[in-house]
């Protein structure tokens, strides 16, 4: 498994925005105090022009995070460590559609955050539910860290968006430029994400950028804790993600593959058979063992529910000891028990 690069090599993502007060090179400070004649000779060695950010003479308020009241409030609301600077949070709030310059937008942070959130959600689900079918696994990951889920999370963090990403906008607002009305968002985002964005897309990218900031400034274990507290604490009923088409057929293929006795549906209880509201309780047996039970208003409905419950009982198996693979990232000698690996989905 590829190790995530350590902090020192990822600093290139956080090349600082051109803020003279914070990023003042020694030459500037010398020039202000010394005489103009002598200053030219005193300039120390500066890095090559391509690497130094272009210093702007006046800053628009949206590039001045220290003037915003919303940013420290957001910082405190998320309980971020003092090591996490306000400037990174401000940068996370600027979508690529708001600014052409990569140094001021959250594009790089989004990429990193996307990798982190996707990885942590996937590993958690794979270890907790090793037998989950692939499509359902993807849906579950999307339910935790997809665009809609992260956009909802961003709203719950109290982040508002600016109508237009102009220069006088508060640095604590999400800045992105909207698509024209009537434009198909998916096609437009696919074509050129820098031309315009939807609120959902921008909000989701913002949340990813915040995660990236936590990783860069606070470290790996803090990122995992942040993920557990904000994403994994959300409620997701994985059993509600299933949509079966022929559960009885699938169940009999599964029993054949696993070497169980073929499933037989038996009526366990019933009432009101010829009345307006009958209730049937059907159990699916493999040999003498009950593997699933379902109820319904008709015999067929109860039988199908029973098959569905039997399949869910199989797919939603969760091993008692769960060791996440990323446990080994934190300490090399952590005792790691490999996750249970399932043979695969049932081929019908």
């Amino acid at each position, binding site marked *: 498994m590829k190790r995530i690069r350590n902090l020192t090599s990822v600093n290139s993502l956080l090349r600082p925005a051109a803020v003279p007060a914070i990023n003042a090179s020694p030459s500037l400070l010398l020039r202000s105090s010394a005489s103009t004649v002598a200053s030219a000779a005193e300039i120390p060695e500066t890095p090559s022009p391509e690497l130094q950010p272009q210093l702007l003479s006046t800053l628009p308020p949206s590039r001045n995070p220290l003037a915003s009241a919303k940013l420290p409030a957001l910082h405190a*609301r998320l309980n971020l460590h003092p090591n996490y600077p306000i400037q990174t949070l401000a940068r996370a709030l600027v979508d690529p559609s708001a600014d052409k310059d990569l140094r001021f937008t959250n594009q790089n942070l989004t990429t990193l955050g996307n990798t982190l959130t996707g990885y942590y959600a996937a590993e958690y689900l794979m270890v907790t539910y090793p037998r989950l079918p692939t499509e359902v696994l993807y849906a579950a990951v999307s339910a935790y860290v997809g665009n809609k889920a992260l956009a909802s999370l961003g709203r719950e963090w109290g982040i508002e968006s600016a109508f237009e990403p102009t220069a006088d906008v508060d640095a604590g607002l999400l800045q992105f430029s909207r698509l024209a009305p009537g434009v198909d968002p998916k096609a437009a985002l696919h074509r050129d994400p820098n031309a315009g964005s939807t609120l959902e897309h921008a909000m989701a990218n913002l949340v990813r950028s915040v995660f990236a900031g936590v990783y860069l400034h606070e470290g790996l274990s803090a990122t995992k804790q942040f993920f557990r507290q904000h994403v994994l604490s959300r409620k997701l009923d994985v059993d509600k993600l299933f949509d079966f088409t022929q559960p009885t057929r699938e169940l009999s293929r599964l029993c054949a593959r696993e070497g169980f006795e073929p499933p037989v549906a038996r009526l366990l209880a019933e009432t009101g058979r010829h009345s307006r509201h009958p209730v049937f309780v059907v159990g699916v047996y493999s040999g003498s063992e009950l593997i699933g039970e379902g109820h319904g208003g008709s015999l067929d409905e109860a039988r199908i529910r029973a098959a569905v419950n039997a399949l869910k009982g199989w797919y939603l198996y969760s091993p008692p000891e769960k060791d996440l693979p990323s446990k080994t990232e934190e300490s090399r000698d952590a005792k790691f028990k490999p996750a249970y690996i399932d043979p695969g989905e049932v081929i019908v």
Partner: protein
Amino acid sequence: MPVTPLRLISKSQNGVGAFVLQCKRMEFNYCDWAGSSKGMNSFLKHHLPKFAKANPQIEITVSPRPHKHPIIRSEYINGREKVICVRNLEHNQILQKAELLRNSSGLKLRRVTKPVSSMNESVRGIFSPFHGTGYAI
């Protein structure tokens, strides 16, 4: 494939993991001329700095609202806002109102009749007449 997924999103459970204070913004409006704003002016001088420091998650704004009663307007994460007119109140009473707004969730006031409200199904299960002992077909 026989199994197709349904597209759902996870629901937030504020406080289960991280707790996010629902009050995100408070605006204090005072008046230099009105007598009803005396308590508010005193509150702003003596209590507000400590209140703001104790609640860094709330964005606090102070602005004059001439020739009007003093109010506290708070905005919440669910988008609603609550306004309390604090005319003729003493500074400690205004602090109580500010704390009340801070502790609120922004939802409309509603009567709570049930002792427990939860997203999870019951631990002991709902009664079923078909699963008792010796239910014979």
